[in-house]
């Protein structure tokens, strides 16, 4: 696995559904990058505000102050937290030719691989985040597992920084399980 190069500006797009912690995952990533003295910006794109509705969230990471405030159209990194959305080829719309995709899936997604065949430099990673979350007793740990996988697949943020941010946000058993999910996501992510 290779880290993607932190260019002047890296744009990340998260896909998922209301209630899956899409906005939280984006925020945690942005906050972890701040801990590494990078500039970062995260924001959600809501449709109707309700559980189950498709939600996108965006993160921009840069070594310089970030001006651009529009939605993200040409992401370097795409992350899908919802298993079903993970099988949709629409998630790679606008992906950078050398981009990285991280999906919540038990196995290699052939439809996505085929869609990515026009971008030979792009990389697809998959992790069974749902399986990891359920093994820890709650589907809500899914986003932490995905963040762990993202850290390993892209190298845009360290696992340690993500863990630090989790520690400021949660405590007790919820913290421990989120940390475990993140660690497992980091360990178990595979490249297609």
């Amino acid at each position, binding site marked *: 696995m290779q880290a993607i190069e932190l260019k002047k500006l890296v744009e990340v797009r998260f896909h998922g559904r209301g209630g899956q912690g899409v*906005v939280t995952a984006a*925020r945690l990533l*942005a*906050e972890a990058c*701040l801990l590494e003295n990078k*500039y*970062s*910006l*995260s*924001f*959600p*794109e*809501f449709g109707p*505000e309700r559980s189950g509705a498709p939600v996108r969230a965006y993160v921009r990471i840069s070594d310089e102050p*970030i*001006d*651009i*405030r*529009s*939605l993200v*159209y040409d992401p370097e990194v795409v992350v899908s937290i919802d298993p079903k959305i993970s099988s949709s080829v629409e998630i790679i719309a606008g992906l950078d030719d050398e981009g990285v995709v991280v999906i919540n899936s038990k196995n290699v997604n052939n439809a996505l691989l085929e869609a990515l065949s026009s971008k030979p430099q792009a990389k697809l990673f998959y992790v069974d985040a749902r399986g990891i979350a359920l093994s820890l007793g709650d589907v809500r740990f899914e986003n932490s597992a995905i963040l762990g996988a993202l850290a390993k697949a892209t190298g845009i943020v360290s696992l340690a920084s993500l863990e630090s941010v989790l520690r400021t946000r949660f405590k007790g058993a919820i913290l421990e399980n989120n940390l475990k999910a993140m660690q497992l996501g980091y360990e178990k992510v595979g490249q297609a």
Partner: protein
Amino acid sequence: MSTSEAIAYAVKQANVDVIAAYPITPQTIIVERLSEYVHNGELDAEYIAVESEHSAMSACVAASLTGARVFTSTASQGLALMHEVLYLASSLRCPIVMAIANRALSAPINIHCDHSDMMGSRDAGWVQIFAENGQQAYDRIFQAFKLAEDEDILLPVGVNIDGFFLSHAVEGIATISDSEAATFLPPRKAKYYLDYSMPMTFGAFALPDWYFEIKHQVVEAMDRVPKKLAEIEETYYKMTGRKYDHVGVYKTEDAEVCLVCAGSSAATAKFAITRLREKGIKAGLLSIRLFRPFPVESILLHVKDVKALIVMDRAMSPGAPSAPIAQDIKATLYDAGLNIPVANFVYGLGGRDISAAEFESIIMKIVESLKAGRPIEKGVMYWGLRA
């Protein structure tokens, strides 16, 4: 932290006395955090949970008249519901500070960003400031209180943040210490206020003999704002190294085309102009950071030599010859004897995004018209509207 959290934190550091508010998306996080601060004992203030925005602003006016430092926040329909009381706040010279998370007005119902809400209250006698990012929003809260409560001003101030694009955006924001906040913004000392031991009348009836003069005092106070705000910005700059002025200026020195914009899109436009400059296109940017009073002098410093202006409005004015910001820009140019063509685009209503690439296309469209000697289209154009 998010812009909303940064605003709530600034309001806490400003040590307000009274908050009266009603939650509404996308502003809710601001008043949620404030109610937590009050509940946890981190902020010694009266939090009045009212049943509507009309009551929120009414309570703010009454509290402000007692000499208290007062804050509220709203958006969209909430601001519209406050409308009649907004005029009381300015005419009774209540230095209330309000964060407005700019959101479209119904119908159709929509929770996303545009500037129609504030533009609907444009003439209510409030000072209106636009923030481009979370840092500006945080810093402007302190400046807003200092400006509002100055005895030469005594006007309410709105700090506008684009709904979602700013209100829900998380980024690194530099904060000042509580002691710096206290030094910059000491407790309010009202000269005239409601007091049982010293009875006074506020909001008395005025007949045709004096109404006009009393109303005109709001205009006089508004005219004193640019100089006073500049002094406040200077003091804040000495403390923090951060200064925003009344317009944000980017690469206007040799610009042939200058784009005028307000809010978070100005930041995106800046990104687009950087890219155009790399391609040799002489474009510049003026960001309207102070909208009321309109920064006429500051604008004129930067537009005299441009061949065309592009004015981007995130609100409509149906039936008007120009949208709100363009109306002011055209009046500014006319009074200065400048006959510079103005291309006016309404964009982004109901939260429709505008990308850096779109800003590039808009600017190139005008650059190419100039190159070909084609006249700039008059009236209002609607950018991104489906046919």
